[in-house]
């Protein structure tokens, strides 16, 4: 999409002079700005590279299981075999094929991380709109609670919630969603604070529009840029946190071929010289996180200016 009818972009770094908060008081402007951003995004190297990496893992998540051996079929006689032509990444301590488990393991994390991030974004956006728009007592009280909430490292808060709810995939999604919502709400709140002073909001109020409409129909479309950026950034952290919680045993449960879980099950055998059941899933996590972060980097530089 090359944004027909728009002045030709002079250079990747010079378009979109307005800040996202100020862009598009009218719907048309917003649409034009969005087109420009997408055009920028398509030329961002890190966005493309990130999409290739994440795309690879998405394909693995969708079709991987059809192409590799059974990721959960254990075969204790052939445990901890070093990588060979038969088992490319070797076998783990239950004799399962590590290559199959790495490929099939993409599915769990690619279900958990995006769903959790969507949940966090919806909750956080609603919270941010309310605290930013009403200010006053509502904002004070909610902001204080959020501040208290954020003074605990997410992984530890996650541990606490996961213990209460019991480990499962749903728990993981809910935990990450709830933990990231306050962080997103702060970004949205900051954008809403500038937005609410603009004339179109005053006009909507004078038209006697109902408050929910002003929030979601008028202000929300104008703060989408920071929300999109926040979503992609949080997605990277969601992968990070989901892998960490699974590693600690509070996420996906055995015998699922989850990457964090594989590392948790096998880090004890590293000292015995068996590095392959641990290193390959670790590298898988690393590439996925880097891929998502490359996308986030591209989105941030196209949207945040």
């Amino acid at each position, binding site marked *: 999409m090359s944004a027909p009818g728009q002045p030709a972009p002079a250079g990747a770094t010079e378009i979109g002079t307005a800040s996202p908060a100020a862009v598009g008081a009218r719907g048309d402007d917003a649409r034009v700005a969005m087109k420009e951003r997408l055009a920028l995004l398509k030329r961002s190297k890190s966005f493309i590279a990130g999409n290739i990496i994440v795309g690879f893992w998405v394909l693995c998540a969708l079709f991987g299981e059809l192409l590799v051996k059974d990721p959960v079929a254990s075969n204790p006689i052939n445990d901890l075999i070093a990588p060979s032509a038969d088992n490319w990444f070797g076998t783990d301590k239950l004799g399962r094929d590590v290559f199959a488990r790495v490929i099939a393991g993409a599915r769990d994390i690619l279900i958990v991380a995006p769903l959790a991030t969507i949940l966090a974004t919806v909750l956080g956006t609603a919270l941010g709109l309310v605290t930013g728009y009403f200010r006053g007592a509502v904002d004070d009280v909610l902001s*204080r*609670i959020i*501040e*208290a*909430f954020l*003074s*605990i*490292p*997410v*992984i*530890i*808060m996650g*541990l*606490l*919630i*996961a*213990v*209460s*709810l*019991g480990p499962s995939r749903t728990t993981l999604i809910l935990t990450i969603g709830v933990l990231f919502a306050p962080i997103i709400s702060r970004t949205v709140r900051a954008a809403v604070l500038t937005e609410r002073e603009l004339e179109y909001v005053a006009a909507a109020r004078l038209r006697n529009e109902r408050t929910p409409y002003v929030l979601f129909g008028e202000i929300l479309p104008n703060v989408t840029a920071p929300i999109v950026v926040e979503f992609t950034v949080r997605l*990277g952290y969601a992968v*990070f946190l989901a*892998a*960490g919680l699974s*590693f*600690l*045993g*509070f996420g996906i449960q055995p015998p699922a071929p989850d990457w*964090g879980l594989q*590392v948790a099950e096998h*880090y004890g055998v*590293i*000292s015995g*010289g068996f*590095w392959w059941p*641990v*290193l390959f899933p*670790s*590298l898988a*996590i*690393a590439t996925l*996180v*880097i891929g998502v*972060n490359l996308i986030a980097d591209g989105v941030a530089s196209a949207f945040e200016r």
Partner: protein
Amino acid sequence: MGLITLLLLSIVIFLAAQVLPGDVGRRVLGPFADQASVDAMNHQLGTDRSLIVQYWDWISGVATGDLGESIRNRPVSDVLIDPLVSSAKLALLSFIIVVPLAIAGGVYAALHEGSFRDRLISVGGLSATAIPEFVWAVIFLVVFALGLGLFPTTAQFPEGAGIFTQLKYLLLPSLCLVCVLFGYIARMARAGTIEALGADYTRTAVLKGLPQRTVILRHVLRNSLLPTIAVVATQAGYLLGGLVIIEVIFNYNGIGLTLARAATAKDIPVLQSGVLIIGIVFLVATLIADILYSVLNPRVRLGAAE
């Protein structure tokens, strides 16, 4: 102000730990225990009382230094004190390595803004930050402990080990934390330095003929490192979270491993007091950063005096 946040914090932790599915005794004993022993467990833990009573009991105990008893009937403070000291060692070592390294890296990148070296430090640093700490741990363990045989595969040094042996055991785990922290701190130091380099006072200093060394040390760095202090403090909180995973994978008996074990054993009293302590450490770190910031920043200091 801080006290209100602290109070809210304790309520948040209490609710997260206690309320969600209600029956603590059932969670501790599992689905197959008979109802009588679950009731007995709840009575012993005091979890058959109303939530407000439980919260008051816990928080008034915390205020007087009594953290209650773990589900294994040990005082919670005894369970937590040694691991806290161990974790402080590990955290301190990581900070001693990462803060000067990241500041030097950030300033160096800023002085060579736009060059390949700058790109290497900023992009490399941020990529390193994005990778979970246990992935770093695995890579370091495979390369340095297994491949080169330079370091032990655990961090738990033998009882009564000398300081150099302790360092040898703690170096790999700290390096994992360093990798995760370097990017953020270096980025702040770099951004601050670039801003200070373009400021009017720097131009004045250069124009009045001061040597470059003096300009950078006295005019640029004093201003550029202020925002970095705030980041270092927030990263202190992050570091405490990172400790959980690092301590588990290196089997190091710190607060992180203790919390992870308490979580597995559903030892709620240990868990909620441990988490509260971490929250307090974070709030204190932020407070110290605020104070340092105003002490070091003449604008804030003089502004307050007027």
